[in-house]
């Protein structure tokens, strides 16, 4: 029974990793840009929520609602002013610019908030749990998982049911032809990054409330997100959720055997999938 409990915790942890990964996946799908600062942007979002909570005294969920539009605008400007300049056939500029951004964000946060670990307090919700028979699960992990599913459903609806989603898909397939139809790729890209920052804000809320964080935890979140995306197969958001769950379960199982093996077990699971299914579990057929 303890194993079942461990696996359940792993599945719920996978929801958090899917939230980390969804923004990364969205941006990559539309403009083939891998943002190496993605993890640091999540941490940046967590600090923003922390500030709103402590200055305005709001509940973290309301604070996230305040932070979301700020992150949205930040993402739009970042893409329009900086990242759009790096797009092209050469893969070096986007990689090196986002790597630079990652270093700037990490050290900016270090300067502003010191290396002390922080936590966004949720009050009683932090320890609340529900039990079904012998198995119990925390309310917060359940909410994280539900949020991950909601985000994926919402992004899929956005992609396939709305005009902006059509513009995303058209620009992703062929930016030149899309621009002939009156779509401006630079604005589409800026909008996509802005929406990714909304997802980042949600990820930041759960990152900050579920565990301690400090300015240096970003790169590890980027790696988990990346592993989830690759395991799931590029371009499939549900695959990304499955990838997150695999990493999450591998980590909790590893930790159950030896606490020092938690992170290592996640990486090993990723390498195994890469070995057996190099294109991921649910690749989109091309």
């Amino acid at each position: 029974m303890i194993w079942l409990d461990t696996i359940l915790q792993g599945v719920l942890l996978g929801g958090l990793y899917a939230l980390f990964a969804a923004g990364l996946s969205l941006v990559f799908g539309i403009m083939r840009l891998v943002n190496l600062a993605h993890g640091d942007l999540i941490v940046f979002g967590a600090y923003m929520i922390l500030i709103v909570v402590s200055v305005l005294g709001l509940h973290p969920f309301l604070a996230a609602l305040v932070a979301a539009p700020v992150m949205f605008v930040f993402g739009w400007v970042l893409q329009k002013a900086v990242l759009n300049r790096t797009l092209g056939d050469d893969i070096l500029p986007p990689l090196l610019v986002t790597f630079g951004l990652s270093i700037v964000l990490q050290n900016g946060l270090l300067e502003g908030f010191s290396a002390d670990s922080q936590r966004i307090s949720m009050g009683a919700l932090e320890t609340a749990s529900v039990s079904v028979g012998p198995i119990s699960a925390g309310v917060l992990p359940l909410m994280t998982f539900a949020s991950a599913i909601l985000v994926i459903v919402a992004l899929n609806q956005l992609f396939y049911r709305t005009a902006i989603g059509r513009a995303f898909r058209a620009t992703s397939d062929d930016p030149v032809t899309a621009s002939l139809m009156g779509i401006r790729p630079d604005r589409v890209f800026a909008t996509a990054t802005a929406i990714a920052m909304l997802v980042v804000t949600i990820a930041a809320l759960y990152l900050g409330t579920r565990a301690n964080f400090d300015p240096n935890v970003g790169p590890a979140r980027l790696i988990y997100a990346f592993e989830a995306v690759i395991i799931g197969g590029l371009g499939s958001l549900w695959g990304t959720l499955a990838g997150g769950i695999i990493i999450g379960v591998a980590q909790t199982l590893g930790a159950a055997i030896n606490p020092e093996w938690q992170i290592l077990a996640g990486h090993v699971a990723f390498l195994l999938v890469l070995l057996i299914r190099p294109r991921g579990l649910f690749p989109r057929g091309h």
Partner: protein
Amino acid sequence: MAMTYSVTTRTGASSIAMIASLILVVVLVAAPAFASRGLIQDLFFILTMLTLAQFWNLLAGYGGLVSVGQQAFVGIGAYALYGAVILGGADPVLSILLAGLAALVLAVPTAYFAFRLQGAYFAIGTWVIAEVARLSVAQWQAVGGGTGTSLPRSALREIGAVNWIETAFDVRASAARDILTYWLALILAVATIAGIYWLLRSKAGLALAAVRDNTEAARSVGVDAGRMKWVVFLTSAFGTGLAGGLIYLQKARISPDAAFSVTDWTAYVIFIVVIGGIGTIEGPILGVLVFFALQSLLADYGSWYLMVLGLIGIAVMLFAPRGLWGLISERTGIQLFPVRRRLVGGALTQEET
């Protein structure tokens, strides 16, 4: 008048550069005779960072393989040296070669996994493997596990060359060890630059440039692009491992977090190459000097220093993607280590610059 043509890469500037480099190397070899211990340590840092930068530049600038996981090879090389010295009682200087070999061995499975990923995903894939290496080494209790260990003093005292330097320069053992590692770093840096220059001027270098510029076109004229990627990746890993072993021989103390640090062994190296000029041999040389100057000026400001470095890196990539050396060579046409082949002699006039 005879109409003989010849193909050459040499230019006036490159001939002068060769002579200047030789003089510089002679001065650097003699440096321990007149330089302070602090200066020797600074030069050691510059030379080892230059070696790491040249190998990363070979990977990314010439091979198109942007790795964010080079710290794996620094760390595994360093730990192989510590393992050989502490557990096997091996000679520390000879163990540097073992450091290179250990990195080479790790590079084979790394390439096998990472080459399944393209572009940016390759970058993060190498990072994952570096993390796996760090976490695995942290489990190795014989060399201190997660907290790390020191090189035993007895092993350091037994190095024959150190005793010789002690008497020749009349210095203490610790200073003599700095001089020895400095000379080794000088040999490594010079051999790296000469080796990469030779590689780029050879047939393999031409194939490499062809693959970087257009993989499909290169394949169509019979270049084995996949093989070139392997050659470049394994060469870089070997050289990075040698540098890693040497760096930690000088430090005499190691921990997994330091030896596998992404900031120290990959981020700094990327900034050196990007600021100096990616895809040239001159770039990393200029870059490491700029990097050292910035560090000397700003090191006291801690995280501000890294922020400034990151911002400069972003600005260079956006506005001068070929780096400082690119700007200089565009304006003046100077190439100190030219790899472009030109046809000279016969009825053709010299290429106008």
